[in-house]
């Protein structure tokens, strides 16, 4: 709360170029960061976060399903170890590893990935998958397999059982996993900083540029406040939309 208060205070003070000292009260910072070149970064961040969320969901669901449903304890712990491995390497090491992989030195990629949005997207998805997998697996393992048996006994082939029973019943996990991944991708810093190479910028990178390269602390404060408001708005809207649906489908075994 104190940090947020300081951020807000900074954002309404006048920027004096060439000095870290600030002047009197002003709304000039907000008018400046609401200019198109800054709004573009916010829009880029929303798009990247949304894409990351969707791709993470698609990539994680099969892994989470296997984790929740495999009868073999050995397979389960193998999946779990592979899922959690990135957690033990730390953000910086992992991101430098991606720079090596995405660069053209080890693998000759047909399209350029490093320092492009595609490369940042790959890094963000990888970064988000463990969390998504764990949230989804928890939701799937809470679905009583008797529902799947019931659907099969009524003539549904496995793909239909999945579409009509398993998937809708795992919706609460899909909603909470997506919200978590969206929120933390929105504030991502090291991944776009290193894999974007200054060409792909998300909100956190712009805040850092303003604060540490231009020494425009009030400007960066204003931008951070705007970003915070946008994040809260996006989260409120999506959780309201998805939450209502999930509540209607909320499952409580008899």
């Amino acid at each position, binding site marked *: 709360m104190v940090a947020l208060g300081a951020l807000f205070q900074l954002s309404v003070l006048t920027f004096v170029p060439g000095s870290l000292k600030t002047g009197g009260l002003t709304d000039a910072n907000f008018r400046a960061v609401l200019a198109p070149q800054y709004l573009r970064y916010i829009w880029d961040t929303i798009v990247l976060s949304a894409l990351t969320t969707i791709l993470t969901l698609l990539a994680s669901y099969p892994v989470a399903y296997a984790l929740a449903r495999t009868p073999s304890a050995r397979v389960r712990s193998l999946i779990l170890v592979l899922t959690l491995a990135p957690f033990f390497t730390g953000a910086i090491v992992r991101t430098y590893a991606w720079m090596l992989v995405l660069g053209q030195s080890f693998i000759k990629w047909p399209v350029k990935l490093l320092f492009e949005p595609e490369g940042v997207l790959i890094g963000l998805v990888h970064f988000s998958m463990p969390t998504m997998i764990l949230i989804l697996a928890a939701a799937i393992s809470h679905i*009583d397999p*008797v*529902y799947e*048996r*019931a*659907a*099969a*006994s*009524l*003539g*549904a*082939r*496995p793909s*239909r*059982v999945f579409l*009509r*029973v398993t998937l*809708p*019943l795992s*919706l609460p996990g899909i909603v909470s996993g997506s919200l978590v991944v969206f929120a933390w991708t929105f504030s991502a810093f090291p991944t776009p900083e290193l894999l974007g190479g200054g060409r792909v910028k998300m909100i956190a990178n712009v805040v850092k540029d303003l604060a540490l390269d231009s020494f425009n602390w009030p400007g960066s404060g204003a931008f951070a406040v705007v970003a915070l408001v946008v994040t809260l708005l996006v989260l409120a809207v999506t959780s309201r939309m998805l939450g209502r649906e999930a509540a*209607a*489908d*909320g*499952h*409580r*075994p*008899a």
Partner: protein
Amino acid sequence: MNTTVVALEGVSKRYGAVQALDAVDLAVYEGEMLSLLGPSGCGKTTTLNVIAGFVEPEEGRVLLDGDDVTRQPAWRRGLGVVFQSYALFPHMSVADNVAFGLRERGVPRADVAARVREALTLVRLPEAGPLRPSQLSGGMQQRVALARALVIRPRVLLLDEPLAALDRKLREEMRAELKDIQREVGITTVFVTHDQHEALGLSDRVAVMNAGRIEQLGSPREVYEQPATRFVADFIGASTVLEGRVVDARTVVLAGGQRVEVHLPRVLSAGATVRLVVRPERVAVGGGAGGAANVLRARIASVMFLGDHSELRLDLDGGGRLLATVSGPALFQPGDAATISVPPDAFLEVPTTASL
């Protein structure tokens, strides 16, 4: 004359170290209601799951109308299953639950609505269609589960402890209703239960299971009156097992020294050891049962008043314990001496070799 609908041939299934099913043979006839009765872990639910196609046996074959369906997945078998927890889909309305199987079969939309209505009327819930399962009571959910299973017009109806989750009064009502519906539809039914009253009251035939085997298969009266093994005698109905030694074809000396006359279908050889089962309702306490009855001396060990009847535990003079029921309250106190009479045909024999 009896057409076999479902047949199990030498079906075995093992879970780790546990032999859940041990070479089970079973034939279910057209239109009958057959119950699988036994304690938990006896293999009755595994048997049902093998028939339904949820569990694949390691050995043996499953036949449906003579066709080998052992390797056929559940969704191809066309059987109706009612689960113990009902397993109604919580994210769908009652009508959508009942319609599920019809939609999977590609039944035209107009027919789906009509058949759903028909099925809900059959289970006496014609108005429940738009509700969510969570808005229904346990008994109502049970009926919806039955409607969902019956609406696809399954070849066989499989019921897994369908009444176990209901409270006692509702369970007795549903028991009668289940029987009516089954008779109305005339569908071949396999019914899993651990409750002997359910099994005896509902079924045409009862398969009593223990440790992965069928101990006895017969009509409710057969398994009650002529238990094939000591396990069946113990499990079905309260009963007492007395040991004795054969004196001649009609006379047995009980372990406690008292002599009784018996009428057993098998010719007894003198000197052999026999195990005799006596049902508690055949034991008369106090007043003589008349004529040919054996009169025995005993002492009351305990009295339990159960409303419409009382249950007495009796210690026979010289040894041996006997269970007796009398209607209404019992006029005895523990420790009282009592004369009891048991008619000769009340003694049933169970094989001495059968282990408990």
